[in-house]
């Protein structure tokens, strides 16, 4: 029987549930490894070689190489883990957040200063923005 997942109709949102966590285990543990300075250095020296040490899918590796966080999330990544890639790159969290929304960092920061993204039109998939 299918489990109840009412959050699947929330637009622009992927809930990191047990299923996503299973898919993303190695991707997220790769991210976790970047908390150590020596691993960050090895990753930066040869990203592909470092990724190949992990039993990740090719899609996950390509998503990391492209720094496409939405693709990373679709293949099981969780934002708190993925943030460690941004930290390795010396990027702020706000830069990473903006990169997932199709906005520039300035546009995103301005939206936050003006009170953030409104929930109006953003509660259900298919709503008019």
């Amino acid at each position: 029987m299918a489990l109840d997942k009412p959050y699947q109709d929330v637009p622009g949102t992927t809930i990191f549930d047990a299923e996503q966590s299973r898919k993303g285990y190695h991707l997220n543990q790769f991210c976790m490894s970047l908390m150590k300075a020596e691993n960050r250095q090895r990753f930066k020296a040869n990203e592909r070689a470092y990724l190949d040490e992990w039993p990740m899918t090719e899609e996950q590796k390509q998503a990391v190489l492209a720094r496409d966080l939405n693709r990373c999330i679709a293949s099981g990544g969780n934002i708190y883990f993925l943030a460690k890639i941004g930290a390795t790159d010396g990027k702020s969290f706000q830069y990473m957040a903006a990169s997932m929304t199709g906005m520039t960092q300035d546009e995103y920061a301005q939206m936050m200063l003006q009170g953030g993204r409104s929930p109006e039109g953003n509660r259900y998939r298919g709503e008019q923005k």
Partner: protein
Amino acid sequence: MAKITASVYTSHVPAIGAALDNGKAAEPYWQPVFKGYEPSKVWMKENTPDVIFLVYNDHATAFSLDMIPTFAIGCAEEYQPADEGWGPRPVPVVKGHPELAAHIAQSVIQDDFDLTIVNKMDVDHGLTVPLSVMCGQPQAWPCQVIPFAVNVVQYPVPSGRRCYTLGRAIRKAVESFDAPLKVQIWGTGGMSHQLQGPRAGLINQPWDNAFLDQLIADPEQLSYKPHIDYVREAGSEGIELVMWLIARGAMSERAPKVVHRFYHVPASNTAVGHLILENT
């Protein structure tokens, strides 16, 4: 006997800690945030407890995906501030209270809540930012702290109802500890925010303020709010607010005294909410 004197609720946005650590607290962007905590720091000095039972969540720091405890109670002597990728925050070591923590673990597990006992872990911004906003930048934290980590990273997270009833079990445990300790319970995280996907940046000010109203006046009813309401209305990371219900559940059944209330948007990607409630 020990008793719970008050509860404190606050967001734990990492950028707030970074602003303080890097001397940016007086900048126009951050000044309104820290101003909101000025009365709190005064109150904290005048009402320093013996122990803070600090409910927070770990953000892929002490717990990777190797182990995901739903409720984890820290029973250690002390906890080091974690290196989250930028070096540890320059804040004091957190001193625990192993005797009270072990007593609470014993009591709460016998009340059917399956806690994970943690005897060694580092603590991340989820725990240290609340201490910073309430205590400033002291050489040592003014009291002992029992870290209580809740999984709100991987779904399903515990329900609001379960958090609220857990708070009641914690109250019972504290009140049966045979030493005259003053204990505060803090609930941290929130308020509305979403850090992932094309909907990142979501903030819902009316919803947040209604949550604060109901947390004060009718937490029993609030505890039945389903997860999907948090996600849809307050963003995927707004679910952290279930942790506030643990602290509220630990308060007396009598109406609390509202000592301080503060709300501000934005701090980086997040709405900041803060309450101090005293038992009457």
